[in-house]
């Protein structure tokens, strides 16, 4: 007989209790009750529920941080954790293995406390004739706004090598008049979340919008814009809290997507509205540019330091301190803007524009009634052809301007593929995106490294020529050099990467996409 180490869960009714003894054929047990305790469960996950999505429950209680397998209730990690932070990063956990487990769930996101649920626990140790603990029983009540709906769970924790005994105790529980039924850890955790009014997995930075290929493009575009608007709204109130950098990042991506839809679907919205909103979103995006740049530098602080010889690292500190201060100031300004009347009105207006009926007067919006699938195919085809054409035109040395421009072409194509994802076969689309992603990574790295160098050069030219600044300037200079070499490496890889994208196999994939919708 193999001993399974999964804990067992049962639901029971309110009057549940255990006797002090019971006899089972061949074995007799005693139950030792421990005093009733209040215990608060603090539920953590990232904003995009990475833990939940990978079946990991992150619960803080009894001053321990526990990572529990959502499917079977087994403890994967349990480490001492003496604070109850609003949010934390994997690095804040002392235990290396646990920290790296969390880091693997999410590299950039913080783990946020979604709620703290006060529960009541009664527990019993089940002892055999030698007074050896063979299992423990835990009765936990999870509150609900409605007292009658209070939920009671019994958890039987196994002890290795005592599987038979565990089953005997479980069998005994089932005969109990208050026994309601078998349940799972997943149900238990769902009840905990529900008690805290927490809805898991309610956010995605790329909401999947199911479009009907035969619907008008105007209708589909509105749907896409509305869901993107949802992302803007979901993130905006979190940005000022400085929990992690991804709120701002997702917010910016949503703005860029909005702009991209507006730019590519020109003849489906009234021109005067279109230009008003294009302008407004461009400005909104611009307001966050510095913030994002600063975020990127701060995230890369360690990498930057590591690029320099040990002796030069310390003199870089003023740069990051300065950056941190600027970031604070910038964030304060942007947070004020987010609660301003101007911003509120823009969002309100935008929402009602998307929600209300629109003109389909052919004189004003000639393309509004086109079929979604037709527009999807033709616009993706156009964008893809453009990437190919521009990519092939790139000179042997691949200049900065050429690569910058191609990056934007690729982004546009990528957004279109994402917008219309629901009208294409998922498997082909995945492969197409995969191909494109590789090219985008090369171009993205190139542009990032360029922007970073420009920023540092700029910083350097504004630096006063004083004796104290010399080591500082030297470090920045060293950094620029290191980044330069990295960038040239990326540039050298461009043609190879592009050729990989520009080949018959990829072309066949794209044609595969189009064929299905012709």
């Amino acid at each position, binding site marked *: *007989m*193999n*001993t399974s180490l999964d804990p067992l869960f049962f639901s029971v009714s309110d009057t549940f209790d255990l006797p002090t003894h019971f006899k089972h054929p061949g074995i007799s047990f005693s139950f030792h009750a421990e005093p009733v305790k209040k215990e608060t469960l603090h539920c953590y996950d990232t904003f995009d529920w990475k833990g939940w999505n990978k079946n990991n429950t992150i619960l803080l209680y009894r001053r321990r941080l526990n990572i529990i397998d959502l499917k079977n209730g087994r403890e994967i990690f349990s480490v001492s954790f003496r604070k109850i932070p609003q949010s934390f990063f994997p690095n804040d956990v002392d235990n290396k293995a646990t920290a790296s487990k969390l880091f693997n769930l999410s590299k950039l996101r913080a783990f946020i406390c979604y709620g703290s649920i006060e529960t009541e626990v009664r527990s019993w140790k089940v002892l055999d004739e*030698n*007074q*050896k*603990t063979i299992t423990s029983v835990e009765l936990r009540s999870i509150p609900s706004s409605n007292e009658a709906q209070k939920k009671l769970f019994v958890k039987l924790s196994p*002890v*290795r*090598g*005592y599987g038979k005994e565990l089953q005997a105790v479980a069998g005994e529980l089932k005969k109990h008049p208050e026994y309601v039924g078998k349940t799972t850890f997943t149900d238990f955790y769902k009840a905990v979340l529900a008690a805290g009014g927490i809805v898991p997995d309610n956010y995605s930075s790329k909401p999947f919008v199911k479009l009907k290929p035969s619907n008008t493009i105007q209708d589909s575009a509105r749907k896409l814009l509305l869901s993107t608007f949802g992302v803007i709204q979901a993130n905006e109130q979190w940005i000022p809290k400085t929990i992690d950098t991804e709120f701002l990042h997702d917010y910016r991506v949503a703005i860029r997507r909005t702009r991209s839809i507006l730019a590519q679907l020109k003849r489906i919205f009234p021109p005067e509205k279109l230009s008003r909103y294009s302008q407004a979103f461009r400005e909104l995006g611009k307001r966050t540019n510095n913030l994002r740049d600063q975020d990127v530098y701060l995230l890369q602080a360690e990498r930057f330091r590591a690029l320099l010889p040990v002796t030069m690292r310390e003199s870089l500190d003023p740069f990051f301190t300065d950056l941190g201060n600027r970031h604070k100031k910038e964030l304060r300004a942007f947070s004020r803007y987010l609660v301003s009347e101007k911003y509120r009105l823009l969002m309100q207006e935008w929402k009602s524009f998307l929600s209300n009926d629109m003109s389909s007067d052919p004189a004003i919006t000639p393309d509004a009634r086109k079929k979604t699938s037709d527009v999807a195919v033709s616009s993706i085809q156009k964008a893809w052809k453009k990437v190919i054409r521009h990519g092939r035109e790139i000179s042997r040395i691949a200049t900065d301007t050429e690569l910058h421009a191609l990056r934007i072409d690729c982004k546009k194509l990528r957004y279109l593929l994402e917008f219309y994802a629901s009208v294409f076969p998922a498997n082909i689309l995945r492969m197409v995106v995969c191909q494109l992603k590789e090219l985008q990574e090369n171009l993205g790295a190139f542009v990032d490294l360029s922007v970073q160098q420009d920023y540092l050069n700029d910083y350097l030219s504004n630096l006063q020529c004083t004796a104290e600044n010399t080591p500082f300037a030297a470090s920045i200079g060293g950094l620029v050099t290191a980044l330069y070499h990295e960038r040239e490496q990326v540039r050298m890889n461009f043609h190879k990467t592009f050729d990989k994208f520009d080949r018959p196999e990829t072309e066949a994939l794209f044609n595969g996409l189009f064929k299905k919708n012709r």
Partner: protein
Amino acid sequence: MKTIALYSIKGGVGKTASAVNLAYLSSLTQPPTLVCDLDPQGASSFYFRIVPNKKYSSRKFLKGDKKIYNNIKGTDFDNLDLLPADFSYRNLDIELLEEKKPQKKLKKNIEELNTEYPFIFFDCPPNLTLLSESVFTASDIILVPLIPTTLSLRTFEQLFEFFKENKLDTSKIRGFFTMFERRKVMHREIVEEYSGKKRFLNRTVPYNSEVEKMGIYRAPLNAVRPNSPAAIAYQELWEELMGEID
């Protein structure tokens, strides 16, 4: 995986007390830890209130793998498991004779547990038998408790001789003094002379009646009386040993 044997040719020197307490300390710092009780008297199993499954026997122990795995039991302490000894272990020596390579048997049988336990402790019966030889091959460290008397030192020397004669690795052997009584001149002189020498650990475990009470507590002393002199000594002994392992 590190394997540590508590071994001595002499009986009643503190092997079991040391195995139980050191394993408990190991489970706190290097979880999880396994104790293999190899003594048919089952003293360490007794301390953890564990009796083996009815069908468990020395034969199953020699089969290894799943047979061992399925008979491991969780103690009342997190991350500390035990493979209990059965009375049939008294036949292990004879049964080992039937094996092709008796000296390597134990090492082979615990290989499976490699990934699960960073530390495994053997609580050995006294005497020098075929089973002991199998333990010598399977262990990374052979910890030998000694009561500070000339007689103990003599048996310690005998163990060394045995290792040399059989071309075993003597560097595995580490002695340490237990049941040390400061008021006894002979104890003082021996401890002063030997502890800290190449083959000995520095830290000694004092004579402490709390250790005897482990039979009543039926738990590691470090779990129930962590401030008793012997528990403190075991704590320091473990730290000294860990310092050497890293």
